[in-house]
């Protein structure tokens, strides 16, 4: 009975999302505010109704209501309680509902917060977001409804896919969706700015924090996904350039570009059309990601059960949205002219310009690599997959170029940089970058890319440090004698700037992790019997025994392996091959030991009859830095989020 309530609520929400689209239009036509208000209240109602709908679905999971098809397919009596609630987004239907629900939440917040401040854009924002909600709710209700009932009630459900019975999976989809959906609000404001022709800074101010929030969530979601892949899939890596990973990475790249280029618009009233283009692209790529995941166009680890009808629908939805958005952009772009021009080649604006170019080139290369198999099959009938070699080849240079710019940005002033200032600012970072070469060689790094990365890390690190030190110094001179209170005041006054610089440091730490784990991973694959030993650069692994383990809803074969490091430090690895009771498939539970400089990663492979089991042992240098870096990024982003609406006129340190 409850699920019908939820179903009905979702249908009502769909009807009201139409109201949310139409009423503001009538309001604009007739000039009556009441109509626009109707649109606003519809947005609140849609959120309330979708909350009810989602709650009933979660309730069905909690109460083991297997008469609901979706519950029967994604849950079972034995499923641990923790996963019962989160199984709601364990499958296609529920995750789309989650998407729609988060979307309605953001729309409600936007309608509530920006109602007074952005009265001109608001009706258009409501209309556009109503349209997006409508599109999603049609998909949820007509093509993939989680509210369907079964005629024959099964005694037990099919259980949640074992790969998803993992804390990482609980957080990965919601965060990713918060990111995707978060871009919808800035997108709508950008469209409103285009339609009303008021593309001044109003929309930038409204959307800055939204964008930053969405970007933070998306970053977190991607990292959660990578981490989950690392410890759950048991292949020793965390990023495979899988089409769906790319689908989440592309909006990240363009979103990052947008975050940087809006600063130029704020400061110098340039890049207006470009910013509109970037945010529309970012949201489009978010939708494209959903399309790729949900339509089964590309084969990937995320390939869920798919049906062509669904794919057709999403494609239609995408086509309408893309052609509408970019059509308006092209048609209205003439109305927007920059107030300023670049004054000089060397100035902060141009570092932003190049940063944007690099990020966009990165996004385009990823897009090409993702779509190339599609194109080749469509036009030549051949099947190919584009793998890591292509992406690494094209992406590492882009990454290094971005690092170089990152080091330069903070030390170059706006408008025009004076020669003397440049010399003064860059002498120390440049010297340190050169010092990076012997350091790299000393660490045994011989690959040119890795050496350049070490140099750039020195360069960026020192340039950021100098910038920070200078800020503290000038504050100390102007009255606050205590360096800590100086730092506190400086960061407090300029949360965005120093939050952003913190994010840079996080990216730097991450890049070190990428290079370390990507280029220096070592692996041993051996078939082992109890008593066998294997060496892995600094570790010696001895297989003690194999035995069976049984827990909650799975049984497993477990290998007990004693690993001893050169310095005598010893750990016991217990990698497993798990078989969940209701599933044919086995999952691999890697045994991971994380240290500051490296991870030891042991996986139990296939059984080789009569000869024992295959054991794969990896040593992943610096892989932990990828996760540490993401923490620093999150920290910096949160600091930046705390900055208020208006940019305070603070004294720039330079």
């Amino acid at each position: 009975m409850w699920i019908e309530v939820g179903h009905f609520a979702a249908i009502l929400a769909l009807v009201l999302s139409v109201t949310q689209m139409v009423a503001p239009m009538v309001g604009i036509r007739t000039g009556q505010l009441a109509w626009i208000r109707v649109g606003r209240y519809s947005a609140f109602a849609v959120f309330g109704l979708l909350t009810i709908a989602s709650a009933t679905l979660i309730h069905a999971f909690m109460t083991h209501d297997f008469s609901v098809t979706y519950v029967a397919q994604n849950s079972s009596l034995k499923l641990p309680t923790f996963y019962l609630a989160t199984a709601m987004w364990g499958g296609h239907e529920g995750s789309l509902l989650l998407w729609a629900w988060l979307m309605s939440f953001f729309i409600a917040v936007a309608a509530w917060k920006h109602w007074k401040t952005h009265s001109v854009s608001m009706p258009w924002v409501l209309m556009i977001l109503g349209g997006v909600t409508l599109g999603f709710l049609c998909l949820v209700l007509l093509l993939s409804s989680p509210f369907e009932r079964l005629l024959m009630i099964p005694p037990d459900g099919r259980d949640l896919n074992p790969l998803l019975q993992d804390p990482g999976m609980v957080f990965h989809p919601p965060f990713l969706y918060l990111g995707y959906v978060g871009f919808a609000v800035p997108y709508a404001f950008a469209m409103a700015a285009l339609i009303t022709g008021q593309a001044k800074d109003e929309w930038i101010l409204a959307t800055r924090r939204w964008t930053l929030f969405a970007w933070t969530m998306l970053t977190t979601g991607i990292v959660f996904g990578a981490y989950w892949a690392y410890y759950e899939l048991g292949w020793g890596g965390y990023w495979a350039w899988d089409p769906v990973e790319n689908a989440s990475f592309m909006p990240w790249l363009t979103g990052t570009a947008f975050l940087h280029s809006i600063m130029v618009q704020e400061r110098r009233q340039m890049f207006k059309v470009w910013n509109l283009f970037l945010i529309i692209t970012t949201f489009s790529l978010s939708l494209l990601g959903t399309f790729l995941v949900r339509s089964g166009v590309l084969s990937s680890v995320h390939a869920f059960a798919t049906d062509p009808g669904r794919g057709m629908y999403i494609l239609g939805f995408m086509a309408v949205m893309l052609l509408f958005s970019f059509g308006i952009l092209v048609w209205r772009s003439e109305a927007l002219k920059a107030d300023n021009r670049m004054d000089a080649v060397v100035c902060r604006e141009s570092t932003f310009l190049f940063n944007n170019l690099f990020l966009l080139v990165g996004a385009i290369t990823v897009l090409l690599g993702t779509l190339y198999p599609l194109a080749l099959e469509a036009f030549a009938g051949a099947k190919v997959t584009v793998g890591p070699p292509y992406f690494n080849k094209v992406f590492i240079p882009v990454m290094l170029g971005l690092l170089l710019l990152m080091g330069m940005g903070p030390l170059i002033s706006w408008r025009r940089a004076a020669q003397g200032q440049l010399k003064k600012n860059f002498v120390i970072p440049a010297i340190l970058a050169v010092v990076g070469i012997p350091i790299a060689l000393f660490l045994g790094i011989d690959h040119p890319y890795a050496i350049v990365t070490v140099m750039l890390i020195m360069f960026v690190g020192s340039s950021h440090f100098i910038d920070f030190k200078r800020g503290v110094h000038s504050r100390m001179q102007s009255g606050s004698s205590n360096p800590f209170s100086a730092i506190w005041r400086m960061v407090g006054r300029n949360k965005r700037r120093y939050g952003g610089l913190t994010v840079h440091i996080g990216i730097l730490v991450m890049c070190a992790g990428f290079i370390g784990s990507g280029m220096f991973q070592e692996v041993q694959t051996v078939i082992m019997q109890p008593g066998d030993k294997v060496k892995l650069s600094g570790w010696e692994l001895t297989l003690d025994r194999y035995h069976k383990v049984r827990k909650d809803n799975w049984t497993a074969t477990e290998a007990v392996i004693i690993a001893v490091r050169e310095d005598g430090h010893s750990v016991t690895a217990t990698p497993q091959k798990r078989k969940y009771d209701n599933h044919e498939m086995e999952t691999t539970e890697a045994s991971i030991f994380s240290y500051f400089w490296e991870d030891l990663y042991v996986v139990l492979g296939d059984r080789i009859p009569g000869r024992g089991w295959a054991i794969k042992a990896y040593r992943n240098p610096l892989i932990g830095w990828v996760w540490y870096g993401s923490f620093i990024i999150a920290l910096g982003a949160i600091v930046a989020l705390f900055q208020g609406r208006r940019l305070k006129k603070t004294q720039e340190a330079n």
Partner: protein
Amino acid sequence: MGKLWKFILLGSIVLILVLMGLGLGRDTKKIPTALLEKPAPILRGPALAGTDTIDIADYKGKWILVNFWGSWCGACVGEHPELMRLDRLIKERDDFAVIGVDYKDTRRGAMAFLRRHGTPSYPMVFDPDQKVAIEWGIVRAPESYLVNPDGMIIKKEYGPLVRNWFNTVALPLIEAYNAKKKPGAS
């Protein structure tokens, strides 16, 4: 924005949409085999039961269905009745043989599987370390290849054989092949 940029932007969007549309109908689960229209790879190995060595070369001049399976594979249970039916059908024909390959498996497991679901009369190769399966490019189980009398692979079946496979799939191929060959020449 210049005219050229507008054109490039809208053009690439339309192109992406068209590509997606074309991509919709594909089956991403099928990994194409490079062996089609090529001579069959070597298939030699110990029999699952007994001590013989089975070699595909001994069946030259016949149609051969090479079926890869394992007792660990759920879909193979579903396929098995169709194989048993095929086994009965080909007893009456001397131009068609079936070779089973039991891979990544233990003898005990495979024997138990056959005791439970029926033991066909055609030969089975035991391939515990996947030597044969890798040679033949097997991705999942069950998968089967159809080899024509010239020793050429002409079809790969992904997943279980369809119901009444011999009459619906194999016979038309055999008839087409025989029609090509001049009567009298073999």
